[in-house]
């Protein structure tokens, strides 16, 4: 049974990786954070499944903290952290 949970956790981790590809492929500024915010739900599921697979019930608390703080981050992003328009590329090789 625990193999099932671990396998599910691995699949979820791989979807996170797949989503990260998106972050790096296109520069669309707001979108990249969108991907990360929605790791919120994937991450919560990942923690829940992983904790079940390892047999630790405290991962529920971690998942709850995770869910709540991702909400804070999302609101903070929209209200105070949205990058301006225009090209946002800083020149690394000044």
């Amino acid at each position, binding site marked *: 049974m625990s193999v099932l949970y671990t396998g599910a956790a691995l699949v979820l981790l791989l979807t996170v990786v797949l989503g990260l590809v998106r972050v790096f492929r296109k520069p669309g500024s707001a*979108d990249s954070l969108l991907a990360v*915010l929605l790791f919120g739900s994937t991450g919560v599921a990942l923690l829940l499944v992983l904790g079940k697979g390892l047999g630790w019930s405290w991962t529920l608390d971690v998942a709850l903290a995770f869910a709540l703080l991702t909400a804070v981050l999302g609101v903070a992003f929209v*209200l105070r952290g949205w990058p301006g328009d225009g090209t946002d590329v800083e020149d690394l090789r000044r």
Partner: protein
Amino acid sequence: MIVLDVLTGLLLCAAAFFFVSGTVGLLRLPDIYSRLHALTKADNVGLGLTVVALMLQAESWSEVFKLVLIYAMVLSASATVCYLIGNEAHRRGQRPRRSGAN
């Protein structure tokens, strides 16, 4: 209890499917609004299925309660943040992409 185990397995597989499809939506869909749509819907269905699957295996009522609480929080947060992002994107002049137009 074997029935419950099989049910959990099926639910987890379905959840994984929804998570993967949400991510595929993020990768493939053309504009921010449709991506928001895909992600919030699919991921929340996926999380819901996961939560149900784990509830079937829960050892105590407090575990069930916490699972429900977590799901409720993620649902309300992602629905609102989805709205906030869409609203802000619209306010900043990002237009939804229509089929046929650019």
